[in-house]
């Protein structure tokens, strides 16, 4: 009887010891797994924005209906959204007019001045009416093409191809008029430098073409024929410039010719004067999720700014503060 008790005691001691070792190991690993990273990148200072620079506030949020929203555009109270495989037209209250599955990879979208919808389908363009009916399908640019932006003006459609990288100019029938790669500038011959698929274009109120040369962190003005007329922009972590590579990832132009820009990496939305000086901040980095993708932008006739927040899956409307 005495001998049996000893066996139990020994077994209990062994069991306790094994449990202590196992649990100790588990807790030790868990503690170390959640311990602070001594090499962590400190972005606190660069994410800070002087509150006096923030001259916009958020007034509306519209949830998006499908996965993977890619781009949006605004015209006459309507917002058109390109998802990776879906096209949707809504109004500014979020009411849907139509949605249409598209058997293509959608990468860019733009309203034409007459309200039709140009859709960038990776390497070719499709044209839809505002009921979602396909009107035209243009020839493929190139198998390596990746259309990142479309900008329209009277009789002309500009298409930005990050795969080139090149700008293609078409008429509304889809006939290619010319293309250019940004080379031929005086000081050097490097042309467009597009390190990743961020290559945005837009038309200003004077019908001039502006192109984000993202590898140079510049926004450049070109003639329709591809002659460089001017540029502004510089690389900088501070508010005055564009941080990292491939910026500004997206931009749009206000009615007074000012530029609204959105950056990747340090996602922030700013307004620059036509001369290139930073004027105000629309949304600071802290207004976005930490790992957010750069947001596509559109502006309405009152210069309100619509931001496609891919991470939060919503369209966010920003209005300028009343001064």
């Amino acid at each position, binding site marked *: 009887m005495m001998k049996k008790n000893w066996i139990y005691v020994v077994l209990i001691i062994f069991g306790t010891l094994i449990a202590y070792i196992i649990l100790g190991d588990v807790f030790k690993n868990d503690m170390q797994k959640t311990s602070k990273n001594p*090499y962590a*990148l*400190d972005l606190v200072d660069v994410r800070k924005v002087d509150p006096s620079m923030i001259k916009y506030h958020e007034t509306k949020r519209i949830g998006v209906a499908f996965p993977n929203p890619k781009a949006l555009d605004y015209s006459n109270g309507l917002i058109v959204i390109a998802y990776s495989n879906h096209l949707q037209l809504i109004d500014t209250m979020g009411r849907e007019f139509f949605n249409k599955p598209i058997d293509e990879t959608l990468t860019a979208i733009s309203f034409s001045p007459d309200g039709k919808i140009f859709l960038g389908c990776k390497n070719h363009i499709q044209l839809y009416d505002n009921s979602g009916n396909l009107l035209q399908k243009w020839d493929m640019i190139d198998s390596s093409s990746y259309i990142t932006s479309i900008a329209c003006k009277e009789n002309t459609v500009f298409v930005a191809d990050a795969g080139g990288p090149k700008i293609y100019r078409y008429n509304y029938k889809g006939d290619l008029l010319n293309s250019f790669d940004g080379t031929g500038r005086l000081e*050097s011959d490097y042309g467009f*430098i597009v*390190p990743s698929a961020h290559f945005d274009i837009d038309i200003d109120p004077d019908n001039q073409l502006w192109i984000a040369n993202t590898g140079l962190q510049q926004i450049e003005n070109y003639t329709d024929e591809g002659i460089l007329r001017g540029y502004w922009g510089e*690389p900088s*972590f501070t508010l005055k410039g564009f941080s*990292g590579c491939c910026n500004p990832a997206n931009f749009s132009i206000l009615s007074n010719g000012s530029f609204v820009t959105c950056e990747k990496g*340090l996602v922030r939305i700013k307004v620059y004067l036509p001369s290139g000086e930073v004027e105000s901040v629309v949304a600071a980095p802290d207004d976005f999720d930490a790992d957010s993708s750069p947001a596509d932008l559109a502006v309405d006739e009152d210069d309100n700014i619509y931001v496609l927040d891919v991470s939060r899956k919503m369209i966010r409307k920003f209005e300028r503060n009343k001064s």
Partner: protein
Amino acid sequence: MKTKEENKTLERRDFIQSTARISLALCIGGLGGLVASKSKAGDYVWQIDPFKCTQCGRCADECVLTPSAVKCIHALQLCGYCDLCGGYFKPGVMDLNTGGENQLCPTAAIKRSFIEEPFFEYTIDEDLCIGCGICVEGCSSFGNGSLHLQIVHDLCVNCNQCAIAQMCPSDAISRVPADKAYKVKGDFTNT
């Protein structure tokens, strides 16, 4: 004096015994060889999945080697060759030059070289790199994510249980076949 019959019996016994010994030795040897070949370090090695890595910093400190066998790798085909490199410069830096106070890397293991206007190339000095991943975090935050961490196999001692893998909070380290020992971005995509 042994008779011829006795000698014959002994020879038969010796023969049986030695045959049994040889068979046993062959069995043990074969089994050992089989086990050794199965557990040979060359078959599987530890590697980091760069798409799972969260640059937690543990690769620098948890490896049994000092400095760590984890090093930063640069997928040049993904790099933008930018002047303002988020993997090279400290956030908020004012001057884009190679001054030590501007560099993000704690050991100055990244070399910045001017190629031609407007391109700069960034290369890693493997001897200086400690695998802390701060440059990877900077590159992912501001650039294309061309900098990433990999376990370098001419340094790695291929422990049965990788000390870093045990501590990795994102389970980014796993055994991979030795003939596909690296998961270099650009060659491998997160599909």
